[in-house]
């Protein structure tokens, strides 16, 4: 898949880790792990800066994670005007992997709390675009 299909508005067409978007379209949330030192990364990356190695494998991010920080956006950047309000959050998963993502709009904003448990769910947007969100 073209990486340009990732997210609501995309700015990048190609990448060695464009498979991230393919996995989302197959309903999987995957990231990369260095085969040499075993470190897992998010965002996914093809190259390990610790080993200066490009040998990576794709691994599933296991949940649930714990919400570390969030904000509900009422005034969004261009391309997101019709999306507001939406909540962005950072959650920590197994192996210390931290993920920035949208918190599902199915959760009442006032019920979103730091420390709450969330899972990563791939989602399909309009026009065959893919993304993911976090929900309990």
């Amino acid at each position, binding site marked *: 898949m073209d*990486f340009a299909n*990732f*997210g*609501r*508005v*995309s*700015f*990048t067409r190609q*990448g060695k880790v464009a498979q991230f978007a393919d996995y989302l379209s197959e309903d999987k949330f995957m990231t990369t792990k260095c085969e040499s030192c075993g470190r897992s990364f*998010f*965002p996914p990356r093809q190259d390990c800066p610790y080993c200066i190695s490009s040998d990576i494998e794709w691994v599933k991010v296991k949940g649930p994670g714990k919400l*570390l*920080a*969030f*904000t*509900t*956006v*009422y*005034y*969004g*950047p*261009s*391309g*997101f*005007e019709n*999306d507001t309000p*939406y909540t*962005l*959050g*950072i959650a920590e998963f197994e192996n210390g992997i*931290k*993920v*920035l*993502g*949208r918190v599902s709009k199915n959760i009442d*904003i006032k019920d979103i709390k*730091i*420390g709450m448990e969330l899972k990563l769910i791939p989602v399909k947007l309009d026009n065959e675009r893919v*993304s993911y969100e976090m929900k309990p």
Partner: protein
Amino acid sequence: MKDVAIVGVGQSVFSRNCGMSIRELCFEPYKEALEGIDLSPKDIDASIICSAPEYDKQRSPAALMSEYLGLTPKPTFYVESICSSSSSGIRVAWSMIKSGLHNVIGVIGFQKMSELASREVAEVMGRGDDTMFGSPLGTSMPAGYAMYAQAHSAKYGTTEEDLARIRVKNSFYGAMNPKATYRKSLSLEEILSSEIICSPLKKFDCCANADGSSCIIVANSDKAKKITDKPIWIMGLGMGTAELNWCVRSSTTSLDSVKEAARQAYEMASLGPEDIDVAEVHDCFTISEILAYEDLGFAKPGEGVKLIKDKETYVGGRIPVNIDGGLLSKGHPIGATGGSQVRTIVKQLRGEAGEAQVEDAKVGLVHNVGGVGTYANVTILGR
């Protein structure tokens, strides 16, 4: 260390719409910086032009500014670290003077943000995040700092009122600054009842886009003493960088980039936070000033709020901060901001700060951050 000095400072009036071109905007602070000092433009050996790209259509603005300010055929080039650009420019100027390559350098910062609609500006700023994995989700500068605010609140109990107190202080001093965009004192109630931008940050927790420019003239020791009888010395410089992706960072309640920059600057100056008489910190949002108190060591982690509650950062307090109104009152013309902060501290150390003068200020600190804590410059200045 007294080997590289600031000999001239200037800034334009910051405003929502300056009604002039970027070259004319840059002439104003240049003129002010040269006022009252013994320096002619032909003795400026090089210029460094600082702004964030994409807010105006001029590609590679350095040559245009060099031409308009009459600095050709001397070297000029562009330095960028978003909102921290002009502090990065001063860092480069220090290095070129310290190395002996040049004697006198002009650092000019500018931004004309009124060329773009506010929402377009928000789009440009959104692309200050990782455009591959962050921006496609709808991130923005206020969203980034709002997450720090939310996490700081959960960990330390920081309230929306605590955040608003920062704006109350900065608006109080902004009212005294003839070069500020907003010159009106705001009440706690006015701030708390303003519309939400990114929870918990409201309109008045956020600085505004503005047009503006700044000019800082830096010289070596021999030249500085001939140019002015009030040279202000660059005692310490520090710079740190945080991961662009917020989720990769180690903390959601403090900024490692700032802590690293502060560590370097204090070490170079052989000074500590207790030695600082007056400071300018990068209050792009109210939470940013509280994080700065803690990351610069003015307060322990989680105790930044106490400083503002006890009015310790007002004139007369333990460490006055942003007593020119800060970015919150002045407005934030990205590339000009660092130079404006340096100008305020230089005027304080020269004893020329007027109404907001801190009595006998000897050492001042400037904290200037680019992006959501991404690039951090800390500069310590002394008489």
